[in-house]
């Protein structure tokens, strides 16, 4: 079984710490993640907002390249790319005429053999993750799934479209306490980060407010767009809300990396706009992993 890796454009730029932490975690777990050769952008929101054929052709070229390279499945950590690739695979396997049309556009016969995996599915498939935890991530966390990781549920067939549980289960495994909260799958404003920053500040502000009100010490995300809006756009969120909001936003791979005992710098925690400090502790993230290291999980040796 060969698992390929589709980083997507964000993970090479504004979300490079997601990629850094994922690769550090994969190395610590002994997993190889070869990139899809010569991958292109999936087209994101822009393509499907402007042209349907283009929005199918761009992901189809990526998946066809993965197939050609003998990949049985592809890990797509960006929730937005995951959505585009999954929807494309679904639509093309549903409709033979469309599959042929798009195959013609990309000059390759797309078969649909490579499965698309999101980050939660990939991490959940790792056996005995609990036993590999060296420093439990003992924090109260708000697991933020966003929209595209879970919807449309009929196509993704992954988790519930509202009130999903898979990320919460994963965070429990690494020693965290996932909280019950109301904004798990509310939209952060996604692709409006630049063109309508005002709307992003409004929607993302509501999400952070609820996480803070429930007593979360960190928001855990699995999408570069969600991170961009909740972290990089914090100054705009704070300006609109008229108050300071200190809660850090951490990629799931960073939280797992800390729990596996990987140095914060290797996980790219220094690249965030909002400093990764936890509400109860004034110490930096470096000390967090160590200070909670004394607690052991039942499965830990």
């Amino acid at each position: 079984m060969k698992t390929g890796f589709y980083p997507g454009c964000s993970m090479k730029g504004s979300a490079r710490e997601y990629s850094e932490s994922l690769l550090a975690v994969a190395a610590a777990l002994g997993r190889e993640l070869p990139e899809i050769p010569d991958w292109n952008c999936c087209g994101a929101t822009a393509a499907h907002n402007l042209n349907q054929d283009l929005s199918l052709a761009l992901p189809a070229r990526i998946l066809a390249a993965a197939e050609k390279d003998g990949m049985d499945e592809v890990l797509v950590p960006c929730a937005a790319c995951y959505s585009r690739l999954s929807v494309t695979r679904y639509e093309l396997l549903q409709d033979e005429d469309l599959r042929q049309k798009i195959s013609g556009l990309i000059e390759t016969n797309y078969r649909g053999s490579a499965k698309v995996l999101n980050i939660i599915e990939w991490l959940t498939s790792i056996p005995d993750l609990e036993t590999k935890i060296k420093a439990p991530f003992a924090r109260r966390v708000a697991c933020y799934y966003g929209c595209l990781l879970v919807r449309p549920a009929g196509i993704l067939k992954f988790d519930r479209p509202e009130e999903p549980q898979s990320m919460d289960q994963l965070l429990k495994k690494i020693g965290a306490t996932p909280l019950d909260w109301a904004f798990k799958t509310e939209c952060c404003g996604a692709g409006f980060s630049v063109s309508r920053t005002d709307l992003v500040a409004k929607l993302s502000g509501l999400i952070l407010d609820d996480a803070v009100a429930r007593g979360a010490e960190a928001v855990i995300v699995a999408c570069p767009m969600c991170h961009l809006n909740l972290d990089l756009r914090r100054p705009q969120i704070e300006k609109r809300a008229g108050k300071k909001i200190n809660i850090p936003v951490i990629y799931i791979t960073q939280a797992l990396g800390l729990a596996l005992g990987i140095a914060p710098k290797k996980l790219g925690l220094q690249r965030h706009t909002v400093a990764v400090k936890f509400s109860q502790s004034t110490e930096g993230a470096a000390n967090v992993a160590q200070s909670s290291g004394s607690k052991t999980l039942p499965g830990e040796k």
Partner: protein
Amino acid sequence: MRSDTHVQHDRQTLADCVLEKTSVDVARCNQCGKCSAGCPLANDMDFPPSQIMHLLQLRDFPEFAEMALRSHTIWLCLTCEICYARCPMEIDIPKLMDALRAESLARKKTNPKAKDIIAFHRAFLDSVRYTGRLFEMGQIVDYKIRSRHFLQDLLQAPAMFFKGKLHLFPERIRGRSLLGRIFARTLKSKENRQ
């Protein structure tokens, strides 16, 4: 208003056009309003999603279809898919929105308030078209030129650069010529100009 509301259609309505292209049938909507209740941006829209459905359902009044095509709503839709998840009739409203955006562009009826949103999408696709991947720095410069928002985010860019998040040069893929052909076959060059 006309009195003969049950006329035979001699021309294709927008609802027919959407049905043909996406197999989304607006006639199935029973106006329960759950989509509008769940939509995170319903308050910012000129018509909440259920009203867009209603505008299309009134097939005998092309002026209503026109209002839907010229609405701000279709561009504000974030495709968060919550409406589709909650719709008791399982109508794929996000797909309908995609089709309406495409029609609105093709018929040159885009809402002037959506100018920045469309400029951003176009700047994004331009970057992908020529390099194969999104080059964030290039896209932002392209967007600034298109939208004339030259000063926006100027203070945040240096911070991003020093955190290693902003690259000065694009990554170019080898399959650029194929990508160029894919773009040429799908997006008409005129459609991609502002």
